[in-house]
């Protein structure tokens, strides 16, 4: 009896204890998106339909986060939901389809564009929108639509309207402080100098840029207003100042001030122009950067004998060492969520971009080139752009955090250094 009871129970226990299979690894492939040429109304310039879908496609493919379906392979070109059949896209292995229509142009030159995004695997429409914009700002309209599509697919903030600041060395005597759209278009030269320019950083409102210029013979920090082009020096106490970084609340700059040749980290309040000392050590403390909550600052210090990353609480002044692997970890920055950091990790003469969760001991190298420096992260935390070199020429490379996509930004005349991604 006992035996039969147990067997019965075992039989029933099998029903209750359900097999669980764990899935941690994801696919190496990318989501495939079909960008269908937009339809047009009769009175609209017939190029607009194709132009706008091409612009959206170009934006979405910019960082290699998605794969596209070639237009020649499309089985249909629907421009409304009534003409849209999921099977046409499922059969081509498409994950998402973007369709739309340029509805009208009014007397003021305003375009009315409607668009929809379909999730093919789930067979649902996940986005529908309408936008009105100037005929001559079709790129701007495409960026807004691209951002909305990107947000719906990834859950991350769209970044197609962000900008990049960087330094260009045309030759050893010409340095330029430049900004451009994230796709490299609309480049603007903010300042040209015969002396080196370094460390650009965006104000959180994207209206100003702080950088270091040697135009007066020593390192001096300038804040330049982008709209007016006005420059203001914040030379404090006549010493060398460097590595300015705006706090996320926009109230202060973290910077390095060197009294009698010993660099330490300071916080500079922009409104009352007050300087507060944060570190005081005979070692070199440099390259500060704020945590997203503006409460902590990460910095590089050689106080242990080799460059390592430390974190200081700006209120309590308590310090914490963050890296221990290897003998070179520098130029640290926080991820937008404040839970991880990325930095330059030196290993046997190679310098690569690495990441580390603050809760973990392990670091992970992201890049495979050997002279990588000055990493900067997209505001949504998904892409890192960094400066690297081929021969003596510097260019900008990029990588998505999942490592699936590596890309390099269009090559310019001269060497490009120190990229800074705008908020």
């Amino acid at each position, binding site marked *: 009896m006992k035996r039969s009871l147990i067997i019965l129970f*075992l039989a029933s*226990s099998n029903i*209750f204890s359900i*097999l*669980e*299979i*764990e899935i941690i690894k994801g696919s190496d492939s990318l989501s495939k998106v079909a960008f269908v040429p937009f339809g047009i109304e009769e009175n609209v310039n017939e190029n607009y339909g194709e132009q706008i879908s091409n612009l959206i496609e170009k934006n979405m493919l910019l960082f290699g986060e998605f794969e596209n379906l070639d237009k020649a392979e499309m089985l249909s070109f629907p421009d409304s939901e009534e003409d849209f059949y999921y099977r046409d896209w499922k059969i081509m292995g498409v994950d998402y389809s973007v369709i739309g229509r340029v509805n009208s142009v009014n007397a003021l030159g305003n375009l009315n564009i409607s668009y929809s995004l379909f999730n093919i695997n789930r067979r649902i429409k996940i986005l529908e929108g309408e936008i009105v914009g100037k005929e001559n700002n079709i790129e701007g309209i495409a960026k807004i639509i691209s951002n909305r599509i990107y947000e719906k697919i990834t859950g991350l903030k769209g970044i197609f309207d962000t900008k990049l600041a960087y330094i260009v060395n045309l030759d050893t005597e010409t340095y330029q402080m430049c900004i451009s759209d994230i796709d490299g278009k609309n480049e603007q030269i903010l300042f040209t100098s015969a002396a080196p320019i370094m460390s650009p950083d965006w104000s959180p409102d994207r209206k100003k840029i702080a950088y270091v210029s040697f135009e007066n013979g020593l390192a001096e920090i300038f804040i330049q207003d982008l709209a007016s082009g006005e420059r203001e020096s914040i030379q404090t106490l006549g010493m060398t100042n460097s590595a300015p970084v705006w706090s996320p609340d926009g109230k202060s700059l973290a910077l390095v001030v060197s009294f009698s040749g010993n660099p330490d980290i300071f916080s500079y309040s922009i409104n009352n122009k007050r300087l507060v000392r944060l570190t005081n050590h005979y070692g070199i403390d440099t390259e500060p950067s704020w945590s997203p909550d503006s409460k902590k600052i990460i910095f590089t210090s050689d106080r242990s004998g080799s460059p390592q990353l430390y974190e200081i609480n700006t209120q309590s002044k308590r310090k914490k060492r963050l890296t221990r692997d290897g003998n070179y970890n520098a130029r640290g920055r926080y991820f937008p969520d404040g839970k991880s950091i990325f930095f330059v990790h030196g290993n046997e003469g190679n310098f690569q971009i690495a990441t580390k969760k603050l809760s973990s001991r392990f670091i992970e190298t992201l890049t495979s080139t050997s002279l990588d420096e000055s990493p900067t992260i997209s505001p949504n935390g998904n892409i890192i752009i960094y400066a690297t070199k081929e021969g003596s020429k510097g260019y900008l490379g990029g990588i998505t955090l999942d490592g699936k996509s590596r890309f390099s930004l269009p090559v310019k005349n001269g060497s490009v250094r120190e990229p800074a991604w705008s908020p």
Partner: protein
Amino acid sequence: MNKILTSFNTFAFILLFLSFVFSVFSITTLKVDETQSIKVNFYELIESVEQPKRLSEARPKETIQQADLNKIEKNSEVKKSLDFKKYKLNKPDIKRELSKIKLSKEREVILKISAIIQDKISSVWIKPNSLSKVLAAKVLINLAPSGEVINFEMVEPSNDKFFDESVLIAINKISFFEEILGLDRKLFESNFRNFKLVFKSSGEIE
């Protein structure tokens, strides 16, 4: 006579009741509940089969004593008889061994098919960037013996809309697990008719 019968009946009932109580207690030692994974379950299955072994452990000793009592002088004969008796007495052990082998074989098949399913899902799951969040979502899959996905349901969502969505997209991409076809029906019913997929954003434990 009736009295004797009734008292015998009462005694028999008490015995029955006691054996029932005993069996109930012996069940609780199995500790199988719905949250346990297959790994634990199978170890316990094997253990439960092994359990009676402790009782039978005394038997070979007895045989040695018996053999001693019989005072068989020739060593070889002692050995022979011992070996023989051991073999004879351990017959239930062989049964147990066989069922163990059967179980471990079943387990092997289950693990093999689980690994195939794991690979198949991994190859279509486009993991979203969940930043530093540690997320997990459980999906209950309902299969037909042909391997066709009849139904699936997210039984424990991760609280991250986009993570959950990525999981549902992945499962939507698969309509068949061909590997199930040809699987022993009993094995299918008990393991793959319903099973859960646990999607995790990272291998970390919080």
